[in-house]
């Protein structure tokens, strides 16, 4: 018989050969406490200040945030205020997007706490000040897919990610919703936070509902989380969007939506198993309503709907018209609840959604996308970031990602917004290259990119009012006259990155 004692020399020899130690027995006696008591704080639950100290954050480092609470976000302002109080300087704030609610950043920029920003969009007073030259260093703008890529490739390294979550257990398993009775907030998908959780050196979860382990199914895994901080509120869910389906009553939007639906139905891509994404604009949402009837009439089902998922999409999924929903961002509460309850409603990270260098990202499998625009030019280039007054007022979002990867990209925009023309000679800022845009739908006619004669032929055959894009520009000019040139200065306040990591355009400061 061979015993442990007899094998002692052999064990030592095997260890020596492998360059390992021989097992010496457990160091500590087993803790007899019930595990719920033992792991009450998982060693991770702490205060925001302590968490910041423990991450080792230093001046000049990069901190990141997600924008799933949109206008209701409370995490960015809370964390940056704390960092300012603790005396941090020269931080690079890398958010998936910023909006009106982040106006307090203006003071933190003036005080040198934040000296660099990377984001998908900027709105409100912060955008206005930055457009006028508030920052020394230009803001870096990336698409959602481009940001995911930049994080994954190390192009944009994140030192510490501060990620809001509607539920989290003491180990760090976190979700954009909560299954507990103490749920305070819901944002649904945490898609834009997932690359940060995966690639940041340190990850701090802020939650307003600390739940018992295990918080499964989880969106962010404990293995990526270093600290958990409990706060009163991570966000006001009511400001993501109202819960109900909003149907546009604007007759022009309805006309545009009907025209866009006709383009889709006659495009050659409207067949069993097609896939679709819509932007959040009134006309593109309404377009879905009009293709819905054709789907029922012709017994056509979609294999998946992608993107910012809305109550509209959830309804069609529940009716059996769309098999699966792929959700990087829930645009309203109905979508967020559906993500929580329906296994066919899948959460994806920004990389799996729209990264150019992930062969399996969902946009690569997308047939058609309906998008809005601030401006389209005669070369089909699109601007969704900078207003016609030269002031930053929007977000790149997934616009260039979906336009580039889809088989059919449709831009829906009115010819004029008030006195502002939407079809122009040259866009104020280049966001989505014209080579990726296939169709532009306006109330004065539909223009097809000359690179798509196949598409043009099908749409002409269907009797749609196809016009040259230059004639739309001319029509706009004949109504509004010639706008004066904008008073741009010489300072670069923004740099627009293409999704492949190259620099595509710059935004100059505006004077006056």
């Amino acid at each position, binding site marked *: 018989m061979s015993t442990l004692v007899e094998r002692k020399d052999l064990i030592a020899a095997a260890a020596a050969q492998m360059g390992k130690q021989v097992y010496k027995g457990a160091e500590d006696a087993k803790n007899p406490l019930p595990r719920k008591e033992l792991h009450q704080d998982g060693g991770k639950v702490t205060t925001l200040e302590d968490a910041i100290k423990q991450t080792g954050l230093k001046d000049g480092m990069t901190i990141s945030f997600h924008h799933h609470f949109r206008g209701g976000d409370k995490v960015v302002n809370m964390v940056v205020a704390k960092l300012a109080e603790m005396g941090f300087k020269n931080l690079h704030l890398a958010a998936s997007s910023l909006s009106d609610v982040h106006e307090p950043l203006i003071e933190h920029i003036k005080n040198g706490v934040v000296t660099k920003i990377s984001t998908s969009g900027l709105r409100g007073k912060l955008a206005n000040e930055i457009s006028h030259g508030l920052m020394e260093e230009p803001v870096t703008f990336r698409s959602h897919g481009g940001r995911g890529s930049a994080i994954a490739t190390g192009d944009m390294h994140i030192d510490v990610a501060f990620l809001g979550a509607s539920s989290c257990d003491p180990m760090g398993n976190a979700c954009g919703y909560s299954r507990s009775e103490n749920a305070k907030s819901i944002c649904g998908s945490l898609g834009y936070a997932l690359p940060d959780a995966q690639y940041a050196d340190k990850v701090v979860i802020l939650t307003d509902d600390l739940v018992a382990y295990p918080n499964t199914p989880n969106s962010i895994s404990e293995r990526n989380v270093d600290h958990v901080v409990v706060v009163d509120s991570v966000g006001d869910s009511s400001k993501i969007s109202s819960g109900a389906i909003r149907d546009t009553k604007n007759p022009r939007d309805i006309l545009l939506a009907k025209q866009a639906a006709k383009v889709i139905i006659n495009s050659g891509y409207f067949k069993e198993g097609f896939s679709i994404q819509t932007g959040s604009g009134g006309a593109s949402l309404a377009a879905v309503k009009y293709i819905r009837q054709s789907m029922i009439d012709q017994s056509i089902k979609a294999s998946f709907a992608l993107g910012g998922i809305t109550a509209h999409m959830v309804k069609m999924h529940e009716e059996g018209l769309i098999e699966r929903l792929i959700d990087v961002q829930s645009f309203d509460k109905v979508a967020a609840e559906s993500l929580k309850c329906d296994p066919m409603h899948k959460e994806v990270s920004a990389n799996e959604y729209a990264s150019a260098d992930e062969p399996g990202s969902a946009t690569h499998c997308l047939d058609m996308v309906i998008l809005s625009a601030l401006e389209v030019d005669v070369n089909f280039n699109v601007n969704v970031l900078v207003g016609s007054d030269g002031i930053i007022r929007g977000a790149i979002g997934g616009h260039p990602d979906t336009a580039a990867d889809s088989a059919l990209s449709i831009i829906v925009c009115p010819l004029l917004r*008030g*006195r502002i023309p939407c079809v122009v000679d040259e866009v104020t800022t280049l966001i989505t290259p014209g080579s990726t845009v296939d169709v532009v739908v306006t109330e004065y006619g539909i223009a097809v990119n000359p690179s798509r004669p196949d598409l043009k032929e099908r749409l002409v055959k269907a009797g749609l009012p196809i016009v040259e894009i230059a004639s739309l520009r001319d029509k706009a000019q004949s*109504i509004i*006259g010639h706008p004066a040139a904008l008073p741009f200065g010489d300072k670069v306040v923004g740099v627009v990155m293409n999704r492949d990591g190259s620099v595509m355009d710059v935004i100059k400061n505006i004077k006056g």
Partner: protein
Amino acid sequence: MEIKNAVAGTLESGDIQVMIAPSESKGLHIDLESSVAFQFGEQIKKVITETLTGLGIEDAQVKASDKGALDCTIRARVTAAAVRATGKDVWK
């Protein structure tokens, strides 16, 4: 021409609100606020001036709040305000 305070138009998108008041000094004094001031500010002032002088109003304070109105809308609102300010119907 004697004028009193008058107003025409709304603050809705695509409209312009025009307020006309007597002026103590000579000439037209136009105070314009516009959502498209950068691109169309001068053009809007030109249309207001042309419309008023065309109606024989040379001296007045004009306060205009523009929300992207087209020239035809601007002319209509300025004319309506002028008619109310002078009591002189120009459409008969």
